[in-house]
């Protein structure tokens, strides 16, 4: 019987099987950020332990950092202390840091691929659930808690129970202005936010092959919103082209690269590989997706009404009533009749250069609606530089948008970018949980073009009806 991509990555990393049935797995890359690491470093100090492979550990600051011009001066003393703690920890323990002020700083899941740290066949972990992003390269990448962060620092391994496999095949050809964000929201709407729990998803099919690396990352990013810890896509020519692009200092070069590619070519799932579960989604039938509730599975096609509490599949009446009350919405409403106060284009889901280009395509020569605040936050300082080289900030600014510096920003308001109570936001991020973007804030998840169009119209629009640009 053939093997799946997941098995082919898992097996070479097995250090040993443990008596309790779990597996001790070797970890190739450990990414670290300021929020989930301080207590792990404190644990090292407490026990007088060192990092086993500091050269495999990389860190950055993203959650707490302000995104305005004066961001080096963090006004919130508690945030500042957390950022300082990471600097000190990296220095004391010999970890490479792409800190605030560094050209390579950015959201951890954006800089990993960008720097060539994320490669096919690797095991990658980070104290952050969206580590699933890196699976777009055919790596096994998953989020861990702080105790596990400490465990990886000390041992470069993790004890894991083997997950089950779940193949999601995206077939057909999507219509115009349907993006990978819509694919993944559709999936979560179909299987629910716990539908992938205990599984590693493998995304495949012609609609996935046709996607760029950046679009693939947006899908893998949201695997966790379906409950799966990891999502994977088999490496192919698109993957190799991305890795061999200029400016990937940590990617293999020359002869090492050739040997790596030869190996990566062996990774895709065999034709006769068997998955524990499978699902097929026809992308030709996917409409632009917008969430209406407080988890990413509460999602509808833009031309469908907000469901009645008794008819929202998979949710109890109480769940739906709570969500609608929080969101200030009435069943039967079309989201195209709902106005927005804030538009946030950013986060590890959709703040790469292609996302910004897509938003610029909509905003070019147009103005945002007067009542809307429009925030465009690049995912990394390198994305910011690239956007500047392409003249995108001028488009954003002349549309009335605010062009910011790299960070998590309003994806989760741990920094000054936050929604105020009851503000409604069209957001390209990944979580519409209560209070996520600011206490009382109302988040609707959408693709970058849906967000940009909402900024112009002042309300949600069906992007399929947007004039050709």
């Amino acid at each position, binding site marked *: 019987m053939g093997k799946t991509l997941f098995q082919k990555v898992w097996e070479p990393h097995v250090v040993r099987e*443990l008596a309790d049935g779990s597996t001790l797995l070797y970890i*190739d890359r450990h990414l670290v950020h300021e929020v989930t690491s301080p207590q792990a470093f404190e644990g090292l100090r407490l026990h007088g332990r060192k990092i086993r492979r500091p050269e495999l550990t990389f860190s950055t600051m993203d*959650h707490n950092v302000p995104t305005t011009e004066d961001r080096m001066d963090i006004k919130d003393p508690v945030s500042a202390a957390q950022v300082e703690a990471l600097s000190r920890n990296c220095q004391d323990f010999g970890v490479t840091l792409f800190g605030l002020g560094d050209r390579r700083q950015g959201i951890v899941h954006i800089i990993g691929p960008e720097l060539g740290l994320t490669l096919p*066949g690797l095991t990658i972990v980070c104290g952050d659930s969206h580590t699933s992003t890196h699976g777009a390269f055919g790596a096994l990448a998953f989020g861990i808690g*702080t105790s596990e962060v400490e465990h990886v620092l000390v041992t470069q391994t993790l004890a894991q129970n083997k997950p089950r496999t779940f193949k999601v095949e995206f077939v057909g050809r999507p219509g115009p202005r349907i993006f990978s964000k819509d694919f993944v929201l559709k999936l979560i709407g179909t299987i629910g936010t*716990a539908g992938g729990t205990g599984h590693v998803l493998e995304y495949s099919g012609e609609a996935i092959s046709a996607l760029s690396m950046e679009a693939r990352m947006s899908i893998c990013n949201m695997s966790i919103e379906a409950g799966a810890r990891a999502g994977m896509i088999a490496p192919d020519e698109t993957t190799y082209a991305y890795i061999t692009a200029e400016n990937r200092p940590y990617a293999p070069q020359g002869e090492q690269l050739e040997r790596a590619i030869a190996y990566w070519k062996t990774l895709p799932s065999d034709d006769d590989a068997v998955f524990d579960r499978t699902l097929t989604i026809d992308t030709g039938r996917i409409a632009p997706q917008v969430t209406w509730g407080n988890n990413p599975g509460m999602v509808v096609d833009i031309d469908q009404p907000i469901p009645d509490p008794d008819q929202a599949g*998979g949710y109890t009446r109480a769940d739906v009533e709570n969500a609608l009350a929080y969101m200030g919405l009435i069943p039967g409403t079309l989201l195209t009749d709902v106005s927005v106060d804030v538009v946030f284009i950013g986060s590890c889901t959709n703040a790469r250069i292609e996302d910004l280009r897509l938003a610029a395509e909509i905003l070019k020569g147009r103005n945002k609606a007067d009542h809307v605040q429009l925030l465009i936050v690049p995912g990394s300082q390198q994305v910011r530089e690239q956007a500047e080289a392409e003249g995108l900030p001028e488009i954003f600014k002349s549309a009335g948008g605010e062009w910011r510096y790299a960070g998590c920003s309003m994806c989760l308001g741990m920094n000054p970018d936050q929604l105020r109570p009851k503000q409604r936001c069209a957001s390209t991020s990944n979580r519409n*949980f209560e209070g996520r973007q600011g206490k009382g804030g109302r988040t609707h998840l959408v693709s970058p073009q849906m967000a940009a169009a909402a900024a112009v119209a002042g309300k949600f629009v069906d992007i399929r009806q947007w004039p050709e640009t």
Partner: protein
Amino acid sequence: MEPFSTHTGIIATLNRSNVDTDQIIPKQFLKSIKRTGYGPNAFFDWRYTDDGRPNKDFELNDPRFAGRSILAVRNNFGCGSSREHAVWALFQDGYRVIIAPWKEVNGERVPGFADIFRNNATKNGLLTVELSEEEVEQIFLAVAGNEGQKATVDLASQKITLLEPNPMVCSFDIDKGSKKQLLEGLDDIELTLQFEGDITRFENEYDPMLSPASPPLDKA
């Protein structure tokens, strides 16, 4: 970590599914670099009103639940962010056991707890118990009908016993590794360090092609 063997306490109920870790401990409390001080902030946005007073409408503020240490919830508890702070907050707020139901959707079993949350809980001595939807419904009914409803949770025998006046016994499954870790209060870094020799051997033979940034290229 404190070992967990058996626990008796009052059950509180929270009638919500898909409770995410952003609700269990909101973002503003993640700025701390400590492991302590999270307890009073568990469920912060639901628990307190804007002026900082206990929110009377929040179920867990019901005076009936004073002194509770077991929490029964609905499906998919702890989803979302990997923040271990959620487990620290629950533990420090006095919870020792969380009960959630698995459910069946289209012939597939949807677990009661999100993966990362369950791992984090085990590493901190917080027991997660998965029961059937019917069993959890029975617990909700028992708690609704009887103030101060208590249960005894015994990990060794994998049983929850609801005490009088609603006696009922439920068995639960738990994987061998988590059970051992909880029963013995093991430090899992210590455990893994027993295999130091295996890790070193693995590293010596490791194909650098898999990990091109690791040094010994000529060993391939």
